Every structure is written in structure tokens, then in C-alpha cells.
């Protein structure tokens, strides 16, 4: 029997189990659990983004050191909230390349700097419409990060809170807020469809799997120089400008633990895989524990043997997590993968 068919049959079994009236509050279906977890994550993204837009406006209206600290802190919180739900690659996030609107990455040609510099060099203040209709590279957290942390804007005479930099920062922060709020609203509208749709069980597991693989291969292996004949290059990590590359990875794993793991555990138990459920939970804990010994930035760790060993420790745990989902969890649930948008070279 093929895996797809098994999944379909198991799906039917699940449907029987969750008939309304039989289910108690404690016996939520995996998709109900996922739905709630993801809804909470999007809601968190919306509220932290709202706060980012507010603090950006406030800082630009009345600049102060304290205001700057608040602004950086709110940027970090909102970006972290996005990392937590970044693995969800289906549903409303698929509209209008919203994931890239929030974070265009990887950026092999330093497009973020090119696009931001163009607007910094204009005479008239940047409007929300201009940001809305420009490149996704201009619209998200990395472009804000460029304005907050990169040395280039200062060299061009546009260090925050300079007027043109402020008009751009406010327009970007408001774009992030709008995108995040729409995601949260659209997820709520999508909920009945998601909870009813059997196919979303496999979709959700595959999303988690892809999310872990992107952490392993692109967010860790690439900067560590572990791909092909690659060399170490901290610029290949995300959030290198702010020195938060590892903060964002931790947030993504923590996000998976919070919104994906509970439903996965339920689903595994329904499939008589309680031991595997425990194994998966433990691997999340082990992986997150690695961050206790790690700083926020990734790039400095590439410079020393001791630093690199610490990164290797994290990489091994992430690989383990990937293998458990890929080799154990997915097969146990009869879930197979099709082509996906990261199949390219």
C-alpha cells in the first residue's frame, strides 16, 4: 500500500474519532491543536508588529536614546514572533509572497541594501504606497534591520532618526504591521477549512519538516560552510546585521515546539506511536538546550575552534530533529512529500 493511501485511510479513522459530541475539551484533534497554536502565533506576530509600528513612529517624532532602545527591542520581539511561525508555509501566508514580504532571505546580492539605499537617496519622504508596490526586499524585517544596524545609511547621511530614514522606517514598519494583521485575520477565516480538511494533516507535518530542514541546511549549514565546497560565511545566516542569527533560529525551533509539537504528539499517539512522540518531544528539548551555551550572534563563532564546536553541537541536534521527523515521524504517519518550492538548486 502506498503511503498516500495509508494517509488517506488514517485520515478517515481520525475523522471518525473527532465526531462532534464525542470529543471532550482535552481530546482536541491534532488539527484543532495546530490551529490554535498557529492562531496564537499569528496573533502574537500581529500585536508585536503593531507595537513595532508605534515605537518607530514615536522614536521618529521625538528621538531619544531610550526611544531607540525601545524601538530595537520591539523590532527584535516582532521579528522573533515571525520566526516562531515562519515554518507555516500553507494557508494565508501563500498569498502575495507574504513570507518574503516579512523576510526576503537569502539575499545573495545584497538586494536589501540596494533597495533601501534607493529610497534613502530620494528627496521626497517615502510613502506607504511606495513601499507597498516595491520589492519584497524592501518590505520586511531585514530592511528595518538595515536601517537600525547597518553602517551604510550613516555613511550616506541617513542614520536614524534622520528624516528620510525615518520616513522609510515608518513606512516599512507599517507595512509589516498590515501584513501581520492580515495574516492573523486571514488565518481566523481559514480555520474552518483547515480543521475540516483532512489533507492539512500531511500539509502541517510537511511544513514542520521543511522548516527544520531550512534551519539545518540553509540557516546553519550554509554559513558554517558545510554545503558543497562552501567556506564559512556569516553573511549567509539570517539577521547577521543585528547579530541575532542564533536568536532567530532558537525562536523558530521554540515556535515549532509550541505550535506544532502538541498536535504531532496527539497524532502519533492516535497511531500507536507513543514512544516516538516522547522521542520527538525530548529531541526538541535537547535541541533548545544547546542555546544555553550559545550567544545571540553566529558569525563570531565561525572565527574560533571553540565557537565552531559549539555550533557543531547545535547542528548535530538540529540534524537529529530533522532525522526523527523525516525518517520516523513522517513514515509512521504514512506521510510522503511532493515537490516543493525549495527543490531548486
Amino acid at each position, binding site marked *: 500500500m502506498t*503511503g498516500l493511501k495509508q494517509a488517506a485511510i488514517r485520515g478517515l479513522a481520525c475523522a471518525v474519532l473527532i465526531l462532534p459530541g464525542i470529543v471532550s475539551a482535552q481530546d482536541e484533534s491534532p488539527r484543532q491543536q495546530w490551529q490554535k497554536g498557529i492562531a496564537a502565533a499569528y496573533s502574537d506576530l500581529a500585536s508585536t508588529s503593531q507595537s513595532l509600528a508605534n515605537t518607530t513612529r514615536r522614536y521618529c517624532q521625538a528621538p531619544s536614546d531610550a526611544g531607540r532602545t525601545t524601538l530595537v527591542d520591539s523590532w527584535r520581539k516582532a521579528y522573533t514572533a515571525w520566526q516562531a511561525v515562519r515554518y507555516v508555509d500553507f494557508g494565508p501566508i501563500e498569498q502575495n509572497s507574504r513570507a518574503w514580504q516579512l523576510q526576503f532571505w537569502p539575499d545573495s546580492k545584497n538586494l536589501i541594501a540596494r533597495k533601501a539605499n534607493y529610497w534613502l537617496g530620494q528627496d521626497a519622504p517615502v510613502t506607504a504606497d511606495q513601499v507597498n508596490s516595491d520589492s519584497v526586499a524592501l518590505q520586511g524585517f531585514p530592511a528595518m534591520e538595515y536601517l537600525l544596524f547597518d553602517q551604510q545609511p550613516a555613511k550616506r547621511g541617513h542614520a536614524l532618526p534622520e528624516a528620510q530614514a525615518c520616513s522609510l522606517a515608518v513606512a516599512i514598519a507599517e507595512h509589516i504591521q498590515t501584513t501581520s494583521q492580515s495574516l492573523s485575520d486571514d488565518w481566523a477565516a481559514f480555520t474552518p477549512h483547515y480543521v475540516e480538511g483532512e489533507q492539512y494533516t500531511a500539509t502541517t507535518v510537511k511544513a514542520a519538516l521543511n522548516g527544520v530542514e531550512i534551519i539545518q541546511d540553509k540557516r546553519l549549514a550554509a554559513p558554517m560552510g558545510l554545503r*558543497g565546497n562552501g567556506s564559512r560565511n556569516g553573511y549567509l545566516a539570517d539577521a547577521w546585521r543585528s547579530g541575532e542569527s542564533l536568536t532567530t533560529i532558537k525562536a523558530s525551533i521554540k515556535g515549532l515546539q509550541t505550535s506544532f509539537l502538541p498536535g504531532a504528539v496527539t497524532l502519533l499517539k492516535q497511531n500507536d506511536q507513543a514512544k516516538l512522540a516522547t522521542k520527538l518531544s525530548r529531541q526538541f528539548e535537547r535541541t533548545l538546550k544547546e542555546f544555553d551555551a550559545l550567544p545571540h550572534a553566529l558569525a563570531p563563532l565561525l572565527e574560533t575552534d571553540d565557537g565552531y564546536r559549539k555550533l557543531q553541537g547545535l547542528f548535530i541536534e538540529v540534524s537529529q530533529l530533522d532525522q526523527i521527523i523525516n525518517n520516523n515521524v513522517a513514515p509512521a504517519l504514512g506521510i510522503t512529500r511532493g515537490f516543493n518550492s525549495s527543490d*531548486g538548486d
Partner: protein
Amino acid sequence: MVARHPLKSLTVAIAVTSLTACSSGGDSAQANAERATGTVTENAVIKNYADIAYANYQDALTTAKALNDATDALIENPDSETLKAAKEAWLASRVPYQQSEVFRFGNAVVDDWEGQLNAWPLDEGLIDYVEADDYQHELGNGGATVNIIASTEINVGGEALDVSTLTPELLANLNEVGGSEANVATGYHAIEFLLWGQDLNGFKAGNGERPVTDYAQGEACTHGNCDRRAAYLDAVTDLLVSDLEWMVAQWAPDQDGNYRSELLAMESGEVIQKMLFGMGSLSLGELAGERMKVALEANSFEDEHDCFSDNTHNSHLYDAVGVRNIYNGQYSRVDGSTVSGPSLSDLVAKTQPELDKSLKSELDASVNALEDMKKSAEAADGMTFDMMIAPGNDKGAELINTAIAALVKQTGSIEKASAELGVESLAPDDAGHTF
């Protein structure tokens, strides 16, 4: 974008396929009879796949040799005519090569080799002079501005390298020097850069405008080092020819120890999986995603595939034609003849004639959408791909989005066809697994 190596997790496995007869396909009369009676075997389909690959790489080689001759003539006698002829030879060489890209994903022998031929986007400052003001390259790439043509020694990542004599071997060693995939020293796009130069027109009409005097020897030489520029062009085109000779030999019939013999000896289901995996990966992740959607959504002409020549529309079109070739088991050679035989289409049609019909029409729809893109790009006052991706160009975006949507659609049917033929992209083989 950055990634140049397929992720290992995408290594695909295959569910057990039922093997029936093992006829080798044989001559076309036999093949036609098999198709008519619905008795096409997987092995016959695989043999035809290898035949198409062989013909396709032979064509890539023939046109690369013509390119090599044309660049030799340019080097010998640099004038506007020889430059024009060299550019035309390059454009012609892309037609068969792009169709061969469908063999990449799934066949490691191709994937491990192709980085030396078609890697992109490149940090072209590795090779030659670039505009200082607006040259964007991969951050942290120590090779991005070393300018091999202007140097006898370069230093990348703390390592000094003697580049005084430019040979095919040296250039092959310099590809991805310093461990950056953006350090493309060889292949079609390096040659493209040497013929056209940087396209400094941004989203506006026009492509690279390298003056032919960049190859003039003596006083007339522009931008310096014309002798080394000529030597580079000579070496890099020689390397392209020898690389393609190697690949042709891998697919040649009746040779022990080459890839074709290895492939024909594999379990047939495994090869069917490679065929479908190549089709789906090129359609979705590579062509629709990396080569169109990224460039469009980011409004990034740096992410344009043939960014120096503005030939991107043809490169996209022939990728899609290549995908269709594999499904239909048919390839039109550059000399106008056709290689044709038992196909995946025949296999699917045996049990799922409706799916076969829709997949065929979807493959046609993708090719048609990219033909529309070509028409727009090649019209008088046309709109090339780098103009289509400009912010606010709704008409351009629509052309690209139509092509993306068509490719996404066909990928869905390729997945269905895979399931129908017993192929799974990830082994769900949970029988006997212990946890």
C-alpha cells in the same frame, strides 16, 4: 539564489514497483506496435530517455563547438561582425543546453557536473572589470572583485593563487574559488559576460554593451588586458567543449562503464522516478521559483538568468520544452530531425488516460505561456524579462505569473503521475521500521 546543491533530504526513494516484461524497446516499428497495443514497458521508456539525453547533449556539444569556432574568430579578428557572430553562436548554444537541464535533478552525474557549465547568478567582478558604483555581489565573498583578467595573482580568502597562465584547467579550478557559489569562473554565463559585458540598463531596454575593442590587441585595446581577456575567452570556451564531450560520452550507447550503462542496469522504477523528479524539480523549484518568482517579487534584475544578454526568455522557454520532451518521449534536434519513442505518457495513459491528457495539455500550456514571454521580449520595442520584473509593470508581471501558474499546475499533475507509476518522492516504507 545561494543554494547550488540539491538538499540531501530531497533525495527521493521509490516505493516498490511491479516489474513486468523486460523488452528493451527495440526499433521504432516494434516501439510503435507496443504503444498501439498499450504494452509499452518501463525499460523501453528508459532506453528512449537515454537516447534523448544522448541526442540532446550531442546537440549541446555541436553548438558549443560552433561557439568555440566563433569566439576563436573573434579573438583572431575582433570586429563588430565577429562579435555579432559569436553572440549568435552563444544564443544558439543555449537552445539545446537548456532543454538538457531536465536531466539534472535526479541524475547526480549531471548535477555534480553542471555547476561548471550553467552556474548563476555570478559575481562577475571575479572575472573582469565591473562598474564600480553599482556592482552588487554576495557579501563576504572574497572573490567578488579580484578581476582575474587584470591580475597574474589573486588572493581569495587568504589564499594566493597564480593565475598568470589562463588555461581550461586553471579556470575549472577557479570555479567556486574560496568556497563561494557566486564565484562562477566558467560556463555559459561567464562566456555571456565576456561577450556582452554588464547590463547597466537596469529595468530599462538594452543589454550589455561590451565594446569589441575589449579584444583589440595593442593600442586600440579598451579597459586593459585585452590579451588576457582573449586568453580567458579562449580557455573558457575550450573548457565548455571538453565538458560537453565528457557528458556526451556518459550517454553514448554500448559503452561499458559509462552512466548510460549504469542507468540501464538500475531497477526500472528507480529510473522512472529520476525522470519524474527531474521534470517536477525543474518546473517548480527551479524555473517557476528561483528563476522567475524571486526575480519578480524582489524586482531583482540581479536574479535574472541570462542577465548580460537578456536572453532569459529563451532560457526559460527551452527549460519548459525540456520538461515536455521527457514526458512525451520526443526531442527535436537542432538539425530538424526528431528522436522519439516510448514515453512516460504511454505508461500513464495505460491506466489513467484522463490524467495523461491533462498533463499533456498542461505541459503545452507552460510552453505556450513562455512562448508569449518570448514574443513580448523579441518584438520590436519589446519588453525583455528584466523590464517585465520592474516595480509596477503589471503587464510584465502578468506574463511571468501566467507562466509560473502553468508550471505550478503541471507539477501537480507530475506528482499525480508519479503516484500512478508507483513513485513516491519520499520513502514512506514503514514496513519493518523499528523505533
